């Protein structure tokens, strides 16, 4: 049977999104309610629905499916909600507290009234093991196996179901870790085992140990979920590959995702960014800022020259995870952020949020305090009859909440609502500033890609604040993550620390390190014909005295040519110069990590089909009274799916799509891309208009 379909599945907090794409690039999408207790139930329900839409049985659909790519929040939720396994740690004797020391750092500098967090593994489950490897990899103290067995027995008796193993310098010599893992497997056959030299074979014990512990903590949860999911899929007749999307946007097989569960912590948002990257390609924009604004949080990332910024400096829920992930800035603000006016602090929006319960006042679930969503409703940006299926939005409740803020500030209702809108936009702009200006990137050379439920209401104004001239709202905005998983290449990445930072220039060793990594990576990316596979080599390097490494691409360097190490070093100098304006060619250079990525090209088809051009002018479906540039105006209202390439819309205007609404103001102009996406030319910033919004100066306490 031919297998024309590929399926992308993105499990979110509320909905699970599905996209089926055929060989011609035709897509069918659907959403099902997520089932947090066991996400695999919702997945199977959604697949049933997807099959129905294709007029197939589930078994038929699965039999015709070439692969499934899946983004999951199982790991994320287990960590955020602290619902991972009871975890034990085996570590080098004398170094029991690496996890809890957190390198000496405490967040929130001036808050001294703050109790320390509970570590994922309490001290009594962090067991010291007599052994020691030196910095050069030599065994200084042999592994004391009888003592190790006693410690393992103690963990077993304490009810531990997952064991992390991290010994000092194991990135140089993993013999003791390997032996300890064997003993754990023998004595605790059911336990999940997480070994630092496999999870993150890199120098710096806190990062490696913390990542290994996180992996152990969420590993059993991920394993349980994957077992259920693969079981259900097999039952339903699927025998193709299931790939899991990782935090860095690469994919991996299920068994590898279980072994490296910590690598799936940002699996969900990574799909969105992969989608954004595919969108960027389709619209021919190399520099894109994906802007994903939802109810409680907003995610901002950066695509430069078609590449997504990566980082290994992040963590989640206060836990350090040093695996590479997409560099995603998550701001705890969105539609639910609360406006408040405190003496001294003055007027602010967020960081407090109304959350899902009670939610914004207009949701009618008991919230009475003004949120960003309430201000959007009062400003006319949202349709009170929207969310009709859920009972609509309560305009009176929103007005009452806004009035309360207005009274405190001595402003009119509209002024207060416009103020809330402006402030949340400034906050979002701050986020973009962090992702761009702070990294020395000028946002004005970027296109903003707007997706996520609340983004369209704010994106044009946020872009204007930052001097960004173009905003694109893709038609697939509502299922961008699932779509992105299908439209992205398959990417698998491996890395390791160099044996010795100082001696990396030894060309024989260097060649062997990269060749071995490449072999490993190729092995793990199955089903790919060599012709469709490409390889990227890179390294993390720094000057001897620096502490921040930079990523240096080694593509195009011939590792068989004598003297290639000098070219590697020169690449580093040039990259450093690009980033920081200078290079120090006389200084020692260290290579800390070697990296190899293997990329399997995916046939794209035309991932988003082109839409037939328009025949005539855009027809508004009605008008809406909205607040724009300091006044209430009657703005035309368009349905996004009634628009086609060739249509031109001038602001002020409202464009409504399935799951988002886009607001244009005077000076903004929108056209449609060949794929039917909204392409907005952002009007210039007008200080006087902004000043008018708050035309009546107010005094505050």
């Amino acid at each position, binding site marked *: 049977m031919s297998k024309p379909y590929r399926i992308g599945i993105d499990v979110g907090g509320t909905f699970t999104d599905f996209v089926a794409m055929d060989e011609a690039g035709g897509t069918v999408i659907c959403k099902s309610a997520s089932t947090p207790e066991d996400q695999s139930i919702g997945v199977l329900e959604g697949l049933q629905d997807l099959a129905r839409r294709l007029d197939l049985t589930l078994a038929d659909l699965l039999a015709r499916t070439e692969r499934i790519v899946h983004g999951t929040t199982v790991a994320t939720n287990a960590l955020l909600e602290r619902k991972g396994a009871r975890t034990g740690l085996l570590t080098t004797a*004398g170094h029991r507290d690496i996890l809890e020391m957190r390198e000496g750092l405490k967040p929130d*500098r001036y808050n001294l009234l703050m109790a320390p967090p509970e570590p994922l593994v309490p001290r009594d489950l962090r067991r010291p093991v007599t052994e020691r490897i030196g910095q050069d990899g030599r065994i200084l103290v042999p592994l004391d196996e009888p003592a190790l067995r006693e410690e393992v027995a103690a963990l077993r008796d304490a009810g531990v179901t997952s064991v992390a193993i991290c010994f000092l310098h194991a990135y140089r010599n993993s013999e003791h870790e390997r032996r300890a893992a064997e003993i754990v497997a023998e004595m605790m056959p059911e336990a999940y085992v997480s070994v630092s030299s496999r999870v993150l074979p890199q120098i710096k014990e806190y990062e490696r140990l913390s990542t290994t512990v996180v992996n152990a903590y969420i590993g059993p949860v991920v394993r349980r979920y994957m077992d259920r999911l693969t079981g259900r899929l097999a039952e339903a007749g699927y025998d193709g590959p299931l790939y899991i999307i990782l935090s860095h946007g690469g994919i991996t097989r299920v068994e590898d995702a279980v072994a490296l569960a910590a690598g799936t912590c940002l699996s969900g948002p990574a799909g969105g960014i992969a989608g954004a990257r595919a969108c960027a390609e389709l619209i021919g924009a190399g520099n894109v800022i994906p802007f994903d604004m939802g109810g409680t949080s907003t995610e901002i990332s950066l695509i430069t020259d078609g590449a997504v910024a990566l980082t290994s400096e992040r963590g989640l829920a206060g836990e350090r995870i040093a695996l590479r992930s997409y560099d995603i800035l998550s701001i705890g603000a969105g539609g639910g952020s609360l406006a408040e006016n405190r003496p001294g602090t*003055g007027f602010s929006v967020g960081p407090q949020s109304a959350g899902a319960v009670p939610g914004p006042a207009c949701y009618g679930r008991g919230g009475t305090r003004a949120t960003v969503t309430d201000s959007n409703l009062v400003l006319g940006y949202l349709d009170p009859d929207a969310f009709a299926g859920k009972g609509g939005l309560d305009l009176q409740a929103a007005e009452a909440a806004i009035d309360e803020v207005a009274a405190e500030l001595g402003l009119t209702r509209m002024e207060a609502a416009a103020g809330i809108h402006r402030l949340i936009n400034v906050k979002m702009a701050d986020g973009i500033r962090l992702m761009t200006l702070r990294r020395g990137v000028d946002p004005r050379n970027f296109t903003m890609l707007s997706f996520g439920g609340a983004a369209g209401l704010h994106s044009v104004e946020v872009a204007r604040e930052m001097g960004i001239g173009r905003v694109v709202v893709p038609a697939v905005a509502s299922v961008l993550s699932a779509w992105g998983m299908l439209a992205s290449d398959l990417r698998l990445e491996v890395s390791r620390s160099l044996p010795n930072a100082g001696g990396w220039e030894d060309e024989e060793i260097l060649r062997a390190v990269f060749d071995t990594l490449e072999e490993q990576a190729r092995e793990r990316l199955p089903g790919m014909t060599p012709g469709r596979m490409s390889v990227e080599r890179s390294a993390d390097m720094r000057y001897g005295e620096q502490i921040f490494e930079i990523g240096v691409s080694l593509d195009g360097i011939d590792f068989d040519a004598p003297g290639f190490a000098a070219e590697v070093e020169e690449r580093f100098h040039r990259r450093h110069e690009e980033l920081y304006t200078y290079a120090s060619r006389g200084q020692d250079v260290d290579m800390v990590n070697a990296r190899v990525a293997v990329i399997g090209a995916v046939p794209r088809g035309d991932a988003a089909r082109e839409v037939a051009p328009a025949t005539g002018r855009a027809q508004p479906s009605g008008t809406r009274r909205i607040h724009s540039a300091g006044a209430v105006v009657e703005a035309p209202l368009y349905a996004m799916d009634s628009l086609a390439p060739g249509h031109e819309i001038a602001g002020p205007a409202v464009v409504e799509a399935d799951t988002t609404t886009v607001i244009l103001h005077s000076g903004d102009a929108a056209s449609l891309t060949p794929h039917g996406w909204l392409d907005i030319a952002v009007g210039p910033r007008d200080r006087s208009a902004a000043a008018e919004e708050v035309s009546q100066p107010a005094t505050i306490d």
Partner: protein
Amino acid sequence: MTDSSNDPIDPISRAVIQHRLSAIVEQMGEAMLRTAYSQILNASRDFSMGIVDRDCRLIAQADHIPVHVGALPWAVKAVEDRFGDDVAEGDVIVLNDPYAGGSHLPDVTIFSPVFAGGARRLWAVVRAHMGDIGGATHGAYNPEAREIWQEGLRLPPMKLADAGVMREDVIDMILMNVRFPREFRGDLDAMIGAAHLGQRSLDRLHAEFGAPMVGAAIEETLNGAETRTRAIVADWPDGVYEGTAYLDDDGRGREDVAIRARVTVQGSDLTVDLTASDAQSDSFVNSPFANTQASVAMALAYLIDADIPKNDGVFRILDVKLRPGTIVHPREGAPVTMSTTHPANEIVEAIVRALQAACPERCSGGWSRRFRMSITGRNPRNGRNFVWHLFHARPGGGASSAGDGWSGAGEWHSVGGIKFGSVEVTEARFPLFFATHEFRPGSGGDGTYRGGLGTSLDLRVEVPAFAHTAGEGIRHGAAGIAGGRDGAPHDYRMVTAEGETALRTKQFGIEIAPDTLFRIRSGGGGGWGDPAARAPEARSRDEKLGLV
């Protein structure tokens, strides 16, 4: 100075401007971090950024090093006093003199003036701790110094750039007087870059909103911080409160050097009188005027809500009384290098000890003291000389009304802000071996809430080397507060074939034979509240986790 301080401003513009001001100082700090050369800057982040106005009022400041809070206005005052109206666009001014707005010599400060509407309005200020500043010893910590001229190069306020033209001759003079001129120049360029970045961002802010509106927003921001601070202090009972903290010694035989704080709470005003403190020393433990001011400001910052912006509004409620000739206000010429840690820590502790009677729930148990140690020698692996500074073995943080203290989180002046380097990286780079580096059980001060634990470090030095110390806290542990007990003091020992010796706090040139072991036990944080009130579950948990 602002010509619009009485104009009302709409709350939205005010919030936007307020946001931008803090974004600007953050952005300056980020640029500094990325571009700095030396480890003390890019790893330990020993620098700070501020915006100060012509009236020497702190407008905004990035949260980097607490002891720099409130220090920058005094630096600006020295610049204003020296140059007055003789400041042009494009000037860059430098200073480090502890007797003219500086703290200690390694802390160099750079100023970039900000003009708007034809008038000078603000300063973008960058302060950073340089790796070396000349003088008798590397890095300026010289226990032998009897006068400031033995500690390094003194820079009064002077111009490094004149209307946009760098004075390379002046820079050459500075570089000639420091040990690592290339590194120094790299760090200096990073500082100037960060100050320029701040100045340009402030130019844009002025262009967008106009100087009067920016000025009005600044007034309201400062007033807002003052309002919130006053609301807190007004809740404390009026009265006179006294507290004392001690330096172990001055390294010259004087022990228990006292810092005495007499704090008067009257309504929402605070007077901190340190005039009864002991006489100045002829060693480097003196705290010059601006550093003492900054230390008092740091104490206040720890007592108010963490989210109140640290600006001039907060410090308006303070009146600090000092007497010349004391350890907290030495006469010009006395050496001062230790002051940013000691007696800065003791000044904070004396004030917190005094105010525990007024606002116990806001007073944290004592954070620890800093015991600095460096080791120098030759690294056989690369044949080069090395200098290693001890940032490991972090001591414990204080307990508080919110719970137990943070173990291994540090001293009053850092409060969890100093990152120690990876043990693996340290072993790979230096001829050092970390046999043990974990919590030190029993070191946290007892209390309703227990102080954080210090750290046990057994460090073997594999080669012949020299060690230097410049520390405090082997006699006095971190203060217990509100009935809590003091944390255990530090205990640093050197173990050789001949036996064991306790290290003194201020010792220069300790000779180290190969394979000498340093047995370092850093102090714990002070406890908070009556130990009798500690929950039995908390005690049994401490037992189970091996923390006591």
